[in-house]
Each structure stands twice: as C-alpha cells, then as structure tokens.
C-alpha cells in the first residue's frame, strides 16, 4: 500500500536496505537444498550425455568447420537432441522449481510478517529473492559451460578461438535471462497464489502452453488472419510473417532464435528469405559477431523486457498485499 493519499510524500531510506542479506540467505538456502541437488544432477547428466555424443561425432569432422566448439552445443546425435534443445526445455523447469514457493512459502511458514517487521522495505525482500534465484541459475549454468569447454578440450583436442568463447559467453548470458523470465513468472504466481502447489501448477501450465501448443496456435492464427486466397507470393509472405510474429510471443521461440544466431554464425535471417535478399551473398559464410548480435538484439531485449514486466507486476501485487497471517 505505497499508494499514498498525499502526493510528494517521500519514503525514508533506501528501498534496497537489507537486500544483500536477503540475497545471501536465499542463495545459501538454494545451494544447500535437496531441490537444487536434484536439478543439478539432471542438468549435468544431460549436458554430459549430449555434449559427449556431439564431441564423438565432431571428432570425425575436425578441421572442416571454423566454429567447431560452438557445434558442441548444437549438434545432435540420434536419438539425443542437441544440448541447446535440452536447455530450452530444462531451464524453465529449473527456474520455476527454484521460485514457485518463494513468497507464499514465507507466508505459510508464518515468517513473512516477522521479516517485514524488520527495518527493510518489501522491495528488498522480493528483489532479493529474485536476484538470489538468478544468481543461483547463473552459477549452475556457468559451471556447466565450463564443464563443456573442458570436455571439448579433452575430446576434440583443440583450443576454442576467441570468437567462439565470446559467442558462447553471450549464449550463457541469454540463457540466464531466458531463465529469468520463467523465474519472474513463478515469482508472480508465488505472490498471487497462497498455495505453493497452485503456483507451481500455474507456472508449469504456462510453460507447457508455450512449449507445446503455442507454435500450433501461431500457425492457425496466421492462417485465419492471412488466408491464402489466390496463392500469391505476397499472401504466402504475409502469412509466414504473421506466423513468425505470433510465435515470437513465446519466450521459447525468442530463445531458440538467439541461440541459433549466436552458435551458428552462418545464420543471417529468420523466417522466409526471398531470392532478392540472397543477391550478392556468399552462401555458408559466417557473419561477424557484431552482425549476429545485431540480428538477435530485438529478441534479447524482448526477453529482458518481458522479465522486467513480469517482475514489476509481482512487485505491484506484493506491495498491495495484506501480510496479516
């Protein structure tokens, strides 16, 4: 209830008082918790499996590709999907599993009113919980990133080039923010629903919706709004653009596009490409890093903006919530 009746009223002190105490405590909780160990085991196993298989496959083609190391992330060997595919799938689950009970859990343990009676603002508690989740996720992902590089060095016997390292670091950053959006979503539900089970189910429902159904819905929407009446090129183009536009509402599409552009330097556009766009282009030649980044800049900002938006929403809800037990 910070909406005050008197304008120009200023709160005393910084809203971030106590923020780092909250972050430290929450991170300690995450890192010592059983939940975290299970998640780590899952992700390390998948990382090891997929990357090991990819490395074995790539050993036969060493020397044919300038970006061999990046292909560790993207090459899939049947029946395993590529590592990035696994990440797109697992990171939301980890993010949701970490935060779905962060606020309502405090409420149910009856610790919330006691914590808020300390000289801190609610801002610090909510933001501290979010940051702790994000740091934990970043820690796990960085560890895996390092493991993959080590594995690559051993199995491929080649050092990565500077550009490969920089590109994969951007990929790491994008993955953390991709986790951030799901974390903000789970946090929102944990503020909204008093029962952690409801919050977890709601978050998983949203994730399933985007992971499984959204691409179909995007196609159907595009077909409905831009039907092919005469089979003209313009119609086909319009429909394909609409379909791409709708599917980009899903963070999963955004993340897939980001990883594609970062880890496959030859990717220079998404969606349909017209022959006129191919004019003067040397097929198969990689883009410089700056150009790849330019290509995914909208997607990356979109991810971050959605995270900020979801967090702001849970912030407003949390501020207006009655904390009486």
């Amino acid at each position: 209830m910070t909406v005050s009746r008197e304008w120009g009223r200023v709160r005393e002190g910084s809203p971030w008082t106590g923020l780092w105490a909250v972050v430290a405590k929450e991170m300690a909780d995450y890192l010592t918790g059983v939940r975290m160990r299970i998640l780590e085991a899952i992700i390390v196993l998948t990382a090891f499996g997929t990357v090991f298989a990819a490395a074995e496959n790539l050993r036969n083609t060493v020397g044919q590709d300038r970006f061999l190391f990046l292909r560790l992330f993207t090459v899939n060997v049947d029946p395993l999907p590529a590592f990035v595919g696994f990440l797109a799938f697992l990171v939301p689950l980890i993010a949701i599993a970490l935060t779905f009970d962060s606020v309502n859990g405090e409420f149910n343990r009856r610790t919330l009113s006691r914590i808020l009676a300390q000289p801190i603002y609610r801002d610090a508690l909510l933001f501290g919980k979010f940051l702790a989740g994000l740091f934990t996720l970043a820690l796990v992902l960085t560890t895996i990133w390092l493991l993959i590089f080590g594995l690559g060095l051993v199995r491929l016997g080649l050092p990565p080039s500077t550009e490969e390292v920089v590109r994969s670091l951007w990929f790491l950053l994008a993955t953390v923010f991709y986790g951030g959006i799901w974390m903000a979503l789970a946090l929102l539900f944990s503020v909204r629903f008093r029962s952690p089970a409801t919050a977890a189910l709601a978050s998983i429902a949203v994730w399933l919706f985007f992971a499984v159904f959204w691409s179909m819905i995007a196609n159907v929407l595009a077909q409905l709004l831009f039907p092919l009446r005469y089979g003209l090129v313009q119609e086909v183009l319009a429909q394909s653009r609409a379909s791409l536009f709708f599917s980009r509402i899903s963070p999963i599409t955004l993340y897939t596009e980001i990883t594609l552009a970062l880890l496959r330097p030859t990717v220079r556009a998404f969606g349909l490409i017209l022959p006129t766009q191919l004019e003067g282009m040397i097929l198969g030649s990689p883009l410089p890093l700056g150009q790849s980044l330019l290509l995914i800049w909208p997607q990356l900002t979109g991810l971050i903006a959605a995270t900020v938006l979801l967090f702001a929403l849970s912030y407003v809800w949390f501020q207006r919530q009655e904390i009486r037990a």
Partner: protein
Amino acid sequence: MEEWVIQTQDLTKRYGDFTAVDRLNLQVMAGEVFGLLGPNGSGKTTTILMLLGLTEPTEGSVRVLGLDPARQPLSVKAQVGYIPDQVGFYDDLTGRENLIYIAKLNGLPRAEAFRRIDEALNRVGLDEVADRPVGTYSRGMRQRLGVAEVLIKRPALIIMDEPTLGLDPEAARDFLGLIRNLKSQGITLLLSSHLLHQVQTVCDRVGLFHRGRMVLEGTVEELARRVLGGGYRVHVEAQGDPQAIEQSLRQLPEAKRVTRSGPDIYTVEGARDMRSEAARAVVQAGGALRSLRLEEPSLDDVYAHYFREVEDDRQS
C-alpha cells in the same frame, strides 16, 4: 524521551465496506504494559499492523516513539520489536542462524550481532538448544526465540500478538514471567490477547476492543468498578437463620448487592474489600461464621458482563 510511546488519533482502517478499526484513540506511556483485549476479528491485529507501518491507515494519525510509521517505517521498525501470533521461523535453520539473519536485516555489524545474539539467547533461556534446528523446538521455545529475536534490536517497544495462545499452562506462566522481566528493564510492551486471565496478571492498563472500537480503557480495577459496579466480592459461609443473616448483610452501607448462592453461602458485592464488615454483620445476626473469601475483580467478569450488556442492548 517521549513520554507517550504510542499515540493514535481517530485511527481508522476500512476494507471496502468493512471497518476493521474505527476512530481509535490509544495512548501508551513509556514503561507500561498495555493489553489490547477483545474477541478475534475485533481489530487488534489491524491496529498492530498500522502501528508498525505494515498497513496504511485509511484515516487518522499514528505516532510511535514520536515517528510516523507510514513515513518513517525503517526508523520505527528498527526500534520496535514485533512478535506475530504463531510466530514462524525457518525450520531447517538453527535458532542461532535464524537470529543471525534478523541481525543482518537490521544491519548490525558482525561482532556486535554475535554478542547481542548470545545475550538474547541467554536471556530467554535458549542457549543450550541454540544450535538445534528450529523444527525440533516446542511452541513455548519458538515463542521465546521470538522474544530473543526482538531483543537483538534493543527495542524501546515490543508488540506481541496473542503471545500465550496455544502454550500449555506452564509454558504460558514462564512466558508471562519473561514479560514481567522485560517490563522491569524499562521496555514498553503492547500485548493483544483474548486470554484474559493471563493478560490480567501482567498488564498495567487494558483496552477492550469490540467491533473495531475501543469500548473500555483503564486499569483492571477501574474497569471492574465501571462495569461491575463493585469490583470486590466477598463470599461468606455462615450457619444460622438465613433470613436474618441476609438481612443483616444487606444493611451494610457499602454493600451494592447481596445474593444467596448456596444453602449457607452468601455473596456480598462492594466497591472495596468488605470482609471485616461482613464478618461483623454475620455475628450480629447470630450466625456462625465458617469462612470468608475475597474474590478480586477479574477481567473475565468485566468482559462477560460488558458483552452481555452489549448483546442485550442490540436485541432490545
């Protein structure tokens, strides 16, 4: 130092059409123990939340330690300890770890925090179990850990919501002893409760809540005088002619009411202790006095009596 630790003026909180707290004027002096009494849902907890700045008042003003909790919540919360009802801790952390977190949130330097934590744990008698997870603590121990937590701040005021609810009689008695101990250190306490007989023994003054309004306020004796007419009841057990004895007791100038509650038992109500007069009256009426017992005014009586009247008024 402010003489008034808590001052509210026409403090009102509405949730939609429902008025949780209605024009409350509450004053608590430094060093006193004040009890907010009333049935569940009568506005006690809402009042406490407004005092801490955890809920904004709809109307009226609050001053706690001379500060406005809505404008200066950090200064207020740094000096005021709050123990919510059914206080909760992180069960998988030890008692000490729980307190360390609170000390960090209060921004205490490390060495100072450890010193205060040891001192507080010692004070509430939890130093031996401090390194066990809170999950293994009993209700009474959790409640005492709650006190240790607020003591870390060295508070000027402690607010407790239903402190003895759910404690067994012995734990409750220990806890009330702890409250008296705090009072003797000069800390002001505000308690809310509906367990009247427990609160009565520690509170200097009480305020009775009913439907969001503080309907009565004062010391227990004052309330008893106001609501019960007399505060003191003398139970007289005497053998002899019942009519003569009753007649004789009724003639005592200060007796407000005389009733016969048993075959040989009479109850005399008066504004003060009337044991000696009653004894004389029985002897004068030719009765044989068997026993004489003084019943001090109890909050339970005040409460029951008051709310019976309120209900009667509403029905008529």
